[in-house]
């Protein structure tokens, strides 16, 4: 049956297209998939793993497993549902392996008590990473708060409430083209605000690599 090419490509179909490209070895497509679901995966892991620096390591592990298992993804469920299961299993395995390591190292009683008792001390992020991340979150938060009210409402209805453009148009009582434009302008405004910071971080990473 011939498909109507003017119909929209749903998010599920978009994921399937990216998966197909990644299966063929197109790494940019896989990178796009990871960045698309990185935060949701991190949120899931954070429910089990409390150490913030470990969350990122486990998230990396999850996506490496996802990449290896891509040929077995048949698309019966949504891509995120499939990734979610892998994330839960990887986080559980991480906890089991970690508890074994702690038993094997025979930590002194006092050390063990302070290790498990002080959550703040368990965050092993480097100071630079914590600062960069904190700065990024601050800039992001400031940029969102400075958005014009109509742009802010449109982007919140889309990203937080997950409404479609049609529903947002109905909610804001405006044409769908206006919603399309407002959401794009909100994203672009935040992109412009973050660019200098992100470019600086990219530059720092390349500098570290060259050393």
């Amino acid at each position: 049956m011939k498909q109507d090419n003017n119909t929209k490509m749903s998010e599920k179909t978009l994921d399937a297209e990216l998966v197909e490209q990644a299966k063929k070895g197109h790494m940019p497509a896989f990178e796009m998939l990871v960045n698309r679901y990185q935060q949701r995966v991190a949120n899931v892991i954070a429910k089990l793993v409390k150490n913030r620096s470990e969350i990122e390591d486990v998230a990396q592990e999850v996506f490496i497993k996802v990449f290896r298992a891509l040929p077995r993804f048949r698309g019966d469920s949504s891509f995120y549902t499939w990734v979610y299961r892998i994330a839960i299993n990887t986080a559980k395995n991480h906890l089991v392996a970690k508890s074994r390591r702690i038993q094997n190292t025979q930590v002194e009683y006092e050390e063990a008590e302070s290790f498990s008792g002080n959550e703040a001390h368990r965050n092993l992020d480097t100071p630079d990473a914590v600062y960069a991340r904190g700065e990024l979150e601050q800039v992001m938060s400031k940029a969102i708060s400075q958005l014009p009210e109509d742009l802010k409402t449109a982007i919140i209805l889309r990203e937080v409430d997950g409404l479609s453009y049609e529903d947002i148009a109905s909610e804001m009582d405006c044409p769908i083209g206006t919603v399309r434009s407002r959401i794009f302008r909100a994203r672009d405004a935040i992109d412009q605000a973050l660019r200098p910071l992100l470019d600086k971080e990219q530059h720092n990473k390349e500098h570290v690599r060259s050393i």
Partner: protein
Amino acid sequence: MSDQSKQNISQLMDGELSRDCSRFLLKRMNHDADFRDSWNHYHLLRSAVQQDGQAPLMLNLGSRVVQRLQSGSEADKPSATSGRGWLKAMTGSAIAASVALLAVISFNQNNLSSADMDSQVPEYAKTAKQLINPPNAFTARVEQKPRYTRYPDLTPQVQHYIMDKNTQTVVPIYYRIQSGQQSPVQQSIQNQARHYTDE
């Protein structure tokens, strides 16, 4: 990059762009880093508003994962079977190949040394250990269990012993019975013999 292209990326990530445009844009994004940067930054905003208090803000995790995959080993490539499945398949193939090789080698050696073998006394495995590791690997023969044996569970050695003993001439037990205790059969035979000698 034009604003229209950026708006298309914004619509694409929301599933609000037509199929044709989406396919075209996806192809373009595979080759254009600027397009991918916009995709990543738009998703960063999504990450920020979806961020759970416990989780750190994820920033371009994709590039780190791809970097790790590209610098990693062969095991990081997508595979149709799991790691264990692959290992099992390889192990099975290796065993099959080894058995085939052993069969070819032993066949050739049997052909080459068949003349010598004929003159040699057959060597049988005498212990369980030798059954597994014969004393003379390719010349050793392990006696097959005779199909007609009454003791199929015994070792070949014990079966041979029994067979050897069975082939010795043994006087039937009733010949060893004293004359006063003769059986009716023996008595009739003796009577007949007397009858012929009397005649």
